[in-house]
């Protein structure tokens, strides 16, 4: 039903509600636990599954084409910077464990605070350059690519 929530594991903390891009993880007023209020607007994106601190959320494939009895579980570890997946086939004949990195840096350390870098000059403002350019945008030394530098012109209506 795409995502669903196990009654015994959910404590109603709301992490899934906070992260769901589709606004479909809500807290049930009676049980005070989370549930998927609109399965046909669920993308199986796993954002809530990854965010749940209790592994209370799982996915059961879309009922219109996915038979029961499979499992794709995930554990995303921000500290270690990795994500671990376990896939189990319906017939029990195939199981896979897959691991991938999710970042190369401690969270929050790699992105710059542009308020604090040296302010751009008037020349930069009047140019076509963006922040940090021309770094990374040329093979050789030089400025940004233009029609002139690349021997090009814009011609109206030509078929090519």
């Amino acid at each position, binding site marked *: *039903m795409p995502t669903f929530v196990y009654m015994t594991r959910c404590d109603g903390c709301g992490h899934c509600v906070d*992260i769901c*891009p589709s*606004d479909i993880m809500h807290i049930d007023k009676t049980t005070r636990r989370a549930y998927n209020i*609109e399965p*046909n*607007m*669920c*993308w199986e*994106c*796993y*954002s809530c599954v990854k965010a749940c601190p209790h592994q209370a959320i799982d*996915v059961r*494939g*879309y*009922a*219109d084409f*996915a038979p029961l009895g*499979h*499992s*794709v579980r*995930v554990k995303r570890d921000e500290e270690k910077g990795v*994500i671990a*997946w376990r*896939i*189990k*086939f*319906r*017939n029990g004949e*195939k199981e896979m464990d*897959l691991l991938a*990195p*999710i*970042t190369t*840096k401690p969270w929050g*350390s*790699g*992105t710059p*605070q542009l*308020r604090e*870098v040296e302010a751009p000059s008037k020349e930069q*403002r009047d140019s*076509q350059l*963006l*922040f940090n350019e021309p*770094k*990374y*945008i*040329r*093979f050789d030394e030089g400025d*940004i*690519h233009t029609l002139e530098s690349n*021997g*090009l*012109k*814009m*011609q*109206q209506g*030509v*078929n090519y």
Partner: protein
Amino acid sequence: MKYDTIVEDDIDILVCGAGLGGTGAAFEARYWGQDKKIIIAEKANIDRSGAVAQGLYAINCYMGTRFGENNPEDHVRYARIDLMGMVREDLLFDMARHVDSTVHQFEEWGLPLMKDPDSGNYLREGRWQIMIHGESYKPIVAEAAKKSADKVYNRICVTHLLMDDSKKNRVAGAVGFNVRTGNYHVFKSKTVVVSAGGASNIFKPRSVGEGAGRVWYAPWSSGSAYGLLIGAGAKMTQMENRIVLARFKDGYGPVGAYFLHLKTYTQNGLGEEYESKWWPSLQEIVGKEYLDPEVSHLTHRPIPTCLRNHAFIQEVNAGRGPIHMVTMEAFQDPHLEEIGWHNFLGMTVGQAVLWASTDVDPKYENPELTTSEPYVMGSHATGCGAWCSGPSDLSPPEYYWGYNRMTTVEGLFGAGDAVGGTPHAFSSGSFTEGRIAAKAACQYIDDGKAEGISISEEQIERRKEEIYKPMDTYNVYRNEITAGSVNPNYINPRQALDRLQKLMDEYAGGVTVSYMTNEKLLNIGLKKLKLLEEDLEKVAAEDIHELLRAWEIKHRHLTSEAVVQHTLFRKETRWPGYYYRGDCMKLDDKNWHVLTVSRRDPESGEYTMEKAPLYHLVDVDGKGKEDAA
């Protein structure tokens, strides 16, 4: 009304929608406007919002100019070929000359990009694609945007742009409501960057019931990029250019890495190669200039995505389906097998779920492919969006009005899906477009263009009333019936969405009609869309969540109307495999080697259509025929 009004005043740059385009805009705006007030309004949570919420396993737009791989003009030619000529080459060149700086910064920020062990360069999947471990792509770029923004408002559904009451056709901010508290939010801003999403779910999906969520583009991509801009009277371009995707059946798992990196290939149900037999008849539709298999074979010039779809659709309709992806060879290599699975886990987990649930092991069984329902967006292999100004040093007069990526509404900028004529931007190109728009927005303010904006209380009150009307409608009429969802006075948002999808499918070229339409059908479609518009005035919302869905369907409706108007206007079949105009079944370069531009009058709702000239990049010495592959 029990909800509070919360006003955020004196904003310089308001970013509406913080996917890849919006995060790029917020990030870059801080550099050019270190003392400016930058605010983000996001419908969900910026850490997992937009089309990249789930992650990505590849960055599909990277030139590698630094390593001598491609120049910007190479990518322009590639996009031009793929879109059958209909692109804004000034905007494409501009995006391509900046995009590498974006990608290298992503690496600095912590995004794990795979490296080629021999060269040390980024690991190529194809000529333009590089492979990444992108599960946390979105949280990482969100972190950069959050550092730059003064404030991020999560869970704000922006419904309308505010317009300046002292000067016609100038933007003044935006309004919306908080999806959690229900409060009314007013953002008064000198400039607005619309970086909301394209549109899934406007054509009836192949899936039914619960599976309707498994659309190719995210279900939360509600066409707000277009709904907001069209509603403000901005000119739009190429809205007829919807996209159909050939993907793994049901799960819509991506095929790029499979074709390019794993070297898998397709065959029909009889195990035969099928594409080439359709080329001669297809050549009669589009002409040799657009499809020349010999040249493509010799030079690796790509065959446009739509034309390959055409062969797929024809082969299936001829009774030789299903089309299979031949994975059994590649998957014998355990390393490639692992990549095949990682590829899905990184960006389309539902496909892994599907294969696990149906016991499809691609090592021993070739999975089925299908062609999807159409989607309206502007950053994959299609270029729907606003008619925007290009940069001063590239753009011809018809494409230039002062500020890069500014729409035809003053102070209103676009990025990502919102900008028309710029296909193949993907995630990195959308982020780059956001950066470009943000710099231009800062210039616009510094040039004094945003002086003297005034917003009347009347406008703010009128929008407020309009926003909550679906809840009022519900409250007034709900108790006229005993229970249930059938009410003679209103429809709910789901019912409206179902009606929209059905009519777009049947009249505007969806899957059930094999992507076929014509003038008569489109005119009926327009009539039905008008009736739906009247009923959307009576859409009812039981709670704030339904109010969100009500405004999403309103944006989808505005998007759909533009799609039908544009499809009606372009009297040719430009992209066979995306859609067919049965009454003009040929590509017609004599009359239609142009971009289509529309404007919907916000007062009357009337459309005006025009043709805009196409400019192509050519070499100064007159060539320009080099082939991209």
